[in-house]
């Protein structure tokens, strides 16, 4: 992460610690990171309304947890960690609900993608999204963080609490699977 950005985050955290400026600091943090967090969540849960609900929960968790944040990690990796966990919890709850109603969960994510406004299976960016949705959950997180958020492995390691080596292997596997998906699709 950029040094100047990290310094800016430290200043925001210091502002947050003062009761009088707490809300202002929180709003500044949201302004800085909420859009990135939204896209990270959206790529995982696909649907906009679901992403918005998850983001609301994330912002509540940030508000409640920020006072106890000990700055052992970067603010933004901490925010991404909360967003990732919330998105995965949301998907888990959807899975449980699908199991109770005996419906197909994996199919429901695929259906959500197909139901998206402007979906066109012939367009490469939609095909890529279909390929990403076919990945296992954790691999999808790793792939998105690396490919779209362009995150260094060290920061991904803080977010996912996984070793850099394991993350590299996971990302390479994901890339190969996405490739295979494309090859199958275009045969």
């Amino acid at each position, binding site marked *: 992460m950029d040094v100047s950005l990290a310094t800016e985050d430290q200043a925001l955290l210091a502002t947050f610690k003062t009761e009088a400026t707490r809300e202002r600091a929180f709003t500044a943090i949201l302004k800085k990171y909420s859009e990135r967090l939204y896209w990270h969540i959206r790529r995982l849960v696909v649907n*906009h309304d679901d992403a918005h609900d998850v983001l609301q929960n994330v912002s509540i968790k940030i*508000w409640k947890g920020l006072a106890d944040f000990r700055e052992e990690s970067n603010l933004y990796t901490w925010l991404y960690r909360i967003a990732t966990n919330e998105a995965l919890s949301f998907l888990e709850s959807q899975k449980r609900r699908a199991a109770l109603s005996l419906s197909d969960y994996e199919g429901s994510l695929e259906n959500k993608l197909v139901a998206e406004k402007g979906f066109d299976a012939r367009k490469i960016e939609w095909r*890529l999204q279909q390929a990403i949705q076919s990945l296992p959950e954790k691999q999808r997180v790793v792939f998105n963080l690396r490919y779209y958020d362009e995150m260094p492995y060290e920061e991904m390691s803080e977010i996912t609490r996984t070793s850099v080596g394991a993350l590299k292997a996971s990302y390479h596997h994901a890339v190969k699977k996405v490739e295979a998906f494309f090859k199958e699709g275009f045969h």
Partner: protein
Amino acid sequence: MSQSENIQKELESLSSPLANMPKGQPFAVPEGYFARMIEELTATIAQEDELPRTSIPFEAPEGYLDTLPDQLRDTALKADKSKKVIPLSPIRKLSRIAAAAILLMGLGFGVNSYFRAKAPESVAARHLSKVDKESISTYVSHQWGGVDLETGAAVAESANNETHDAIAKLKSSEIREYLNEHRDVGMIEMDEETL
């Protein structure tokens, strides 16, 4: 080298077609969503903060909650000290024993009657008593080759008596010897006194 370039190089080293693909985001977002987002999120937080104050419409009497822990502790201690055992009066005790005894007797009688009724011997005797003597005699002569009922009974009686007499005449040493010989089939060696 920037992070973006690093990632591009990594994809190229994997010879992945992803290296040459545009990274465009295909998802659509409602118009003006990001402009409203901060406002909406901070409103959610404000609502969340208000929840504890507004979600409980009940009120407790003034000062009730301050004294509540002490009150609960005193009540618990008092209840512990005032545990009493109330003894039964002799008449009530006696009536309980009598009721239990009647119940046991009734149960014993019932069980006894049940097993007696079920015993195969009594069932056979009951059925045989319904058959007339002549039919039994015909059956016995048919089965035992012309021996009539009286003769059969006399033979069985005499055989029984002979067995008893023979056993009575046996010496205890002979019985012990026999028992010791048949120890293998589960018999126990007995001394003279037992015999």
